[in-house]
């Protein structure tokens, strides 16, 4: 029973009683809706919302501007605490708990996804410190927008209802449209924002139209009820709706053939924002894709698997062509989305039997990817600290002699992106392809693994440029000291190694006991 139905019934009851307001039934309604579980599910989002409000108040008073970083970090920590509670204290035995009239899921997965989103936000925010020059007066707005996005991601991950998901999607997208165009005196930033906005709005419209068709065909927008409608999901109308919705989600997750916006938008946006888009948005889209994988008919699972391989191929070969490291990371992000799509294919192919394994693999992959790609982008934003791009691969030549620490960090991140053992990237790939093999998608998995090897080609090219090729005369870019960015890189590197060498720390059966 959805929240709307409850409200509707209570309204009808009131009308039946001659329109008299009945405090007792209203109280009952509230008591049934806002339970302790609901409070636990909402705690991470409410902490972030409080953080946003405090930040906005800080903007008003000159003296309070100094405490902005503390407020931001406090909100993230409080929210992470809430997510930790969801992860550690939700019993996985028994029926899944849904709160607020069945619109929001309370589960360990939601808690872990929440922490992944918060990590992505934290990494993006840390590298944004002292990144902006001309835009520095607007940093308050920047922080507020950046804190809004994870609320939307959490809503997407926990949504059990298409309405909730849609609101989450917009809560994530709209701040990112603004952030992408944040450096509005620069042509490339404005262009990235506009491209992202126009195509994003198109994707949302496609999702809504698909949801409308699905709703007309089945009579419900709630995921648990959609699981039960059975044959109504197989009508042509419902199938069309599902296809449109998947297309829109593939757009957000940058899956072939909806990936063309990615390189332009990633290159033009400010690097910290690119980091948030590449890690957070992708994680949120996949969190919901896995939750809604049951909508995909089993017969279409192979198609999804083929799309995954195509995405991997397109991303990898696109990255091979690039001379700019930021753009190369964008193409490599497409390839990583292709790898992640294997989890959705595995879940759909097994008719939901493998959905727990698939979700776990995706969470692990994203947890590693947040720190790997986030760390690489943090290094990039450190390199372009003086406001200009020094991110061509040629510009990185000789970095190993000039700044061995930075070069070592970048090497670690690139090896992890390539999936070398003892890094987090390897663990993620291992679990993802493990789930795909369990779902009997052997041929597609082999193709995927071979394509992942191709990826090493362009990652190693950068490593060689950094360590073995001397800088061309006069091409060594200037360096700025950026303690926040350095801390961010160190944090990411530590997490990549931790996830890589301590698989039991985050993985195996301990993730969702």
């Amino acid at each position, binding site marked *: 029973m959805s929240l709307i139905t409850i409200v*509707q019934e209570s309204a009808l009851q009131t009308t039946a009683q001659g329109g008299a307001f009945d405090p007792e039934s209203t109280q009952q309604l509230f008591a049934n809706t806002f339970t302790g579980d609901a409070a636990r599910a909402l705690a991470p989002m409410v902490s972030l919302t409080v953080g946003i409000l405090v930040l906005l108040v800080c903007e008003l008073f000159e003296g309070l501007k100094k405490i902005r970083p503390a407020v931001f970090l406090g909100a993230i920590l409080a929210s992470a605490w809430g997510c930790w509670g969801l992860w550690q204290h939700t019993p996985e035995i028994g029926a899944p708990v849904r709160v607020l009239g069945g619109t929001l899921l309370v589960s360990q997965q939601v808690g872990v996804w929440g922490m992944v989103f918060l990590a992505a936000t934290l990494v993006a925010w840390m590298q944004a410190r002292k990144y902006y020059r001309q835009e520095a007066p607007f940093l308050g707005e920047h922080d507020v927008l950046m804190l809004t996005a994870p609320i939307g991601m959490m809503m997407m991950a926990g949504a059990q209802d298409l309405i909730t998901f849609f609101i989450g999607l917009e809560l994530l997208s709209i701040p990112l449209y603004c952030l992408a165009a944040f450096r*509005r005196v620069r042509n490339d930033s404005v262009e990235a924002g506009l491209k992202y906005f126009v195509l994003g709005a198109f994707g949302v419209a496609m999702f809504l139209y698909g*949801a409308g068709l699905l709703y007309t065909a089945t*009579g419900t927008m709630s995921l648990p009820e959609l699981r039960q409608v059975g044959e109504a999901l197989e009508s042509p109308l419902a199938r069309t709706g599902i296809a449109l919705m998947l297309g829109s989600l593939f757009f957000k997750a940058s899956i072939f053939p909806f990936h063309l916006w990615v390189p332009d938008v990633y290159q033009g946006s400010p690097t910290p924002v690119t980091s948030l888009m590449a890690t957070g948005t992708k994680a949120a889209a996949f969190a919901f894709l896995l939750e809604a994988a049951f909508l995909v008919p089993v017969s279409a699972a192979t198609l999804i698997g083929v799309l995954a391989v195509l995405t991997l191929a397109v991303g990898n070969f696109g990255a091979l062509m690039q001379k700019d490291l930021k753009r190369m990371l964008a193409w490599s992000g497409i390839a990583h989305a292709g790898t992640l799509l294997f989890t959705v294919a595995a879940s759909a192919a097994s008719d939901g039997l493998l959905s727990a394994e698939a979700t776990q693999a995706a969470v692990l992959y994203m947890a590693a990817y947040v720190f790997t790609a986030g760390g690489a982008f943090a290094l990039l934003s450190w390199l372009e600290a003086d406001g200009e791009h020094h991110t061509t691969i040629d510009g990185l030549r000789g970095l190993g002699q000039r700044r061995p620490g930075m070069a070592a960090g970048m090497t670690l991140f690139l090896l992890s992106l390539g999936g070398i053992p003892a890094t987090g990237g390897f663990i993620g790939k291992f679990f993802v392809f493990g789930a795909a093999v369990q779902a009997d998608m052997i041929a597609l998995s082999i193709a995927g693994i071979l394509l992942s090897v191709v990826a090493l080609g362009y990652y190693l090219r950068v490593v060689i440029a950094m360590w073995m090729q001397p800088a061309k005369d006069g091409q060594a870019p200037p360096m700025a000291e950026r303690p926040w960015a350095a801390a961010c890189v160190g944090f990411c590197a530590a997490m990549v190694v931790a996830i890589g060498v301590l698989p039991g720390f985050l993985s195996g059966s301990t993730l969702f006991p």
Partner: protein
Amino acid sequence: MSVPTEHLLILSAILFSIGVAGFFIRRNLIVVLMCIELMLNAANLAFVAGSRHNAFLAGQDQTDLEGPIMVTFVIVVAAVEAAVGLALVIALYRRKQSVDLRELTELEDGSHA
């Protein structure tokens, strides 16, 4: 029902297709934004038609509020999107004195910003 659900869905499909076609054909950003609005309203029509259809299937005197509630949310979000979109268009106009999509050429494969 005096107007069958099919007719409403066909109308909404036509509106949606006009929106999609315009989105890909037109080059003026304001017109592109209008096309997106048209697509959103086609979706709204589908939601309302679905709500009526499902209420009718459920029997006499039944209502299905899920669709109309989604429509309210969509209208609100469409307003937000229009605000952000127009702000971005103004930002572009300030830089290029034009709102033509063909002006967006800074970022391409091989370009070094």
